[in-house]
């Protein structure tokens, strides 16, 4: 119990150090852009593919459920709200933890194991500013963008199944969605995606930065990143959902 509280404290202190390093890091937009590319653009294929299938499943399940009550016309609303408020941010964050989080943790862990971080310190370059902060900012920027793309593709998937395959009226699908989905719903998803971006990226850079400089240590850091990120995403999701109700 004490160890768990200590770990939470250490992660929080690391967050403060990272935030302090973010201001100087903002003066190097090139480094941040590169990390947005590494964590964001390189996750695009998996995000789009999963978004499509999640949307298609939503279309099928939604149609099956709503048709029992004769409400198939509400499929567009159900799919859009489900994706915007819940599935989009959560599934994207879980995928992000598996794809970009592990990549960040192992990259920084290997930099530690091969003395690259120590070399920077000896060259009077702060690794927090040069390595950690740009990756943190890159992940936090990339996450909402990935969620937005996931949502768009997901809604397209739901439309593909619901309208094209199951025969729901296209006009009703889109018009009901337009009238029922508000800015608050979009904002909820946006806040969640930002919170997940901070949580997943912070845990990844923290685990990598504090990895034992051995093959086993780097592997352990990568595993811990996925587990801790996944649990934290679901905990934060519940708290934010409760807060938005």
């Amino acid at each position: 119990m004490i160890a768990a509280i200590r770990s939470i404290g250490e992660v929080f202190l690391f967050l403060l150090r990272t935030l302090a390093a973010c201001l100087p890091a903002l003066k190097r937009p090139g480094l941040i852009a590169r990390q947005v590319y590494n964590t964001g653009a390189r996750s695009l294929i998996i995000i789009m593919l999963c978004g499509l299938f999640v949307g298609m499943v939503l279309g099928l399940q939604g149609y099956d459920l709503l048709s029992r009550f004769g409400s198939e016309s509400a499929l567009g609303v159900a799919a859009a709200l489900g994706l915007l408020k819940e599935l989009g941010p959560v599934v994207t964050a879980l995928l992000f933890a598996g794809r970009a989080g592990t990549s960040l943790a192992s990259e920084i862990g290997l930099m530690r194991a091969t003395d690259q971080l120590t070399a920077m310190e000896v060259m009077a370059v702060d690794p927090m500013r040069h390595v950690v902060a740009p990756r943190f900012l890159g992940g936090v920027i990339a996450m909402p963008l990935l969620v937005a793309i996931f949502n768009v593709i997901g809604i397209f998937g739901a439309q593909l199944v619901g309208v094209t395959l199951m025969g729901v009226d296209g006009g009703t699908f889109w018009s009901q969605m337009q009238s029922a989905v508000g800015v608050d719903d979009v904002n909820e998803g946006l806040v969640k995606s930002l919170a997940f971006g901070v949580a997943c990226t912070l845990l990844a850079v923290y685990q990598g930065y504090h990895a034992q400089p051995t093959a086993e240590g780097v592997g352990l850091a990568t595993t811990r990143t996925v587990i801790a990120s996944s649990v934290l995403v679901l905990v934060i999701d519940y708290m934010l959902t409760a807060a938005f109700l």
Partner: protein
Amino acid sequence: MPATELPRSEVVEVSGVRYSAGPRVIFDDLNLSVARGRITAVMGPSGTGKTTLLRLLTGQVRADAGSIRVLGQDVSQLRGASLYALRRRMGMLFQNGALLTDLNVFENVAFPVRENARLPEAVLRRLVLMKLEAVGLRGAAELMPQQLSGGMARRVALARAIVMDPEILIYDEPFVGLDPVSMGIIVRLIRRLNDALGITSIVVSHDVREVLSIADRTYLLANGRAVASGSSAELQHSAEPAVRQFITGSEDGPVAFHYPAEDYAGTLLGTGDDKGRGR
């Protein structure tokens, strides 16, 4: 060895240093000094804290007691910007090179300059190419670290270590894992850079032959302190048992071959501690 005597001036003074890593005492009353413009070697068996000494000198870890003065400043008192200011006056060659794997050779050498100084791109380019030429790798400027051999990687790291024209250059095990040709190149480079650039060099190594061939003064570490020091000739003719054992590579001597353990016969016959080890 330089023929002329340089004026005595110590750029590094370690006095009465005590340092522990957990329960293990690494240094206990360590004393040594490094003269300006000379090559000072620190030798000792594995695990005697040679790399820890370098970490103490560069302020990566702090001593429990004693003082470490580098270029006139007490390293243990420095924090943040003042520590970084001191590190800019030092260069360090890491055992494995520690090149940044996402940058090519040119950018690796340019890295400390880009981060610590603002030079026009044309000047920076000339500076980097000059340093790469000094280590014979100007032609490899566009290669990535993964494309370099171990010896080449270490030479690139050497170019990076001297690109800021440091006053002190620290080498951590520079000869480990090199083929004879690469090793000869590194040995000559250390001597040449020291003499040509007027750098003070600190070489930490356990390669006796190479170290004694270039060092002006050598310290031998054992049991947490410097047990002997002197010129290469003095060490080679020393009667001190620890020095003799290290120079000749003997199994028996003050440094035990066996890790501390329970009685061997007792362990095998099951009459002693069956874990077979003790501390």
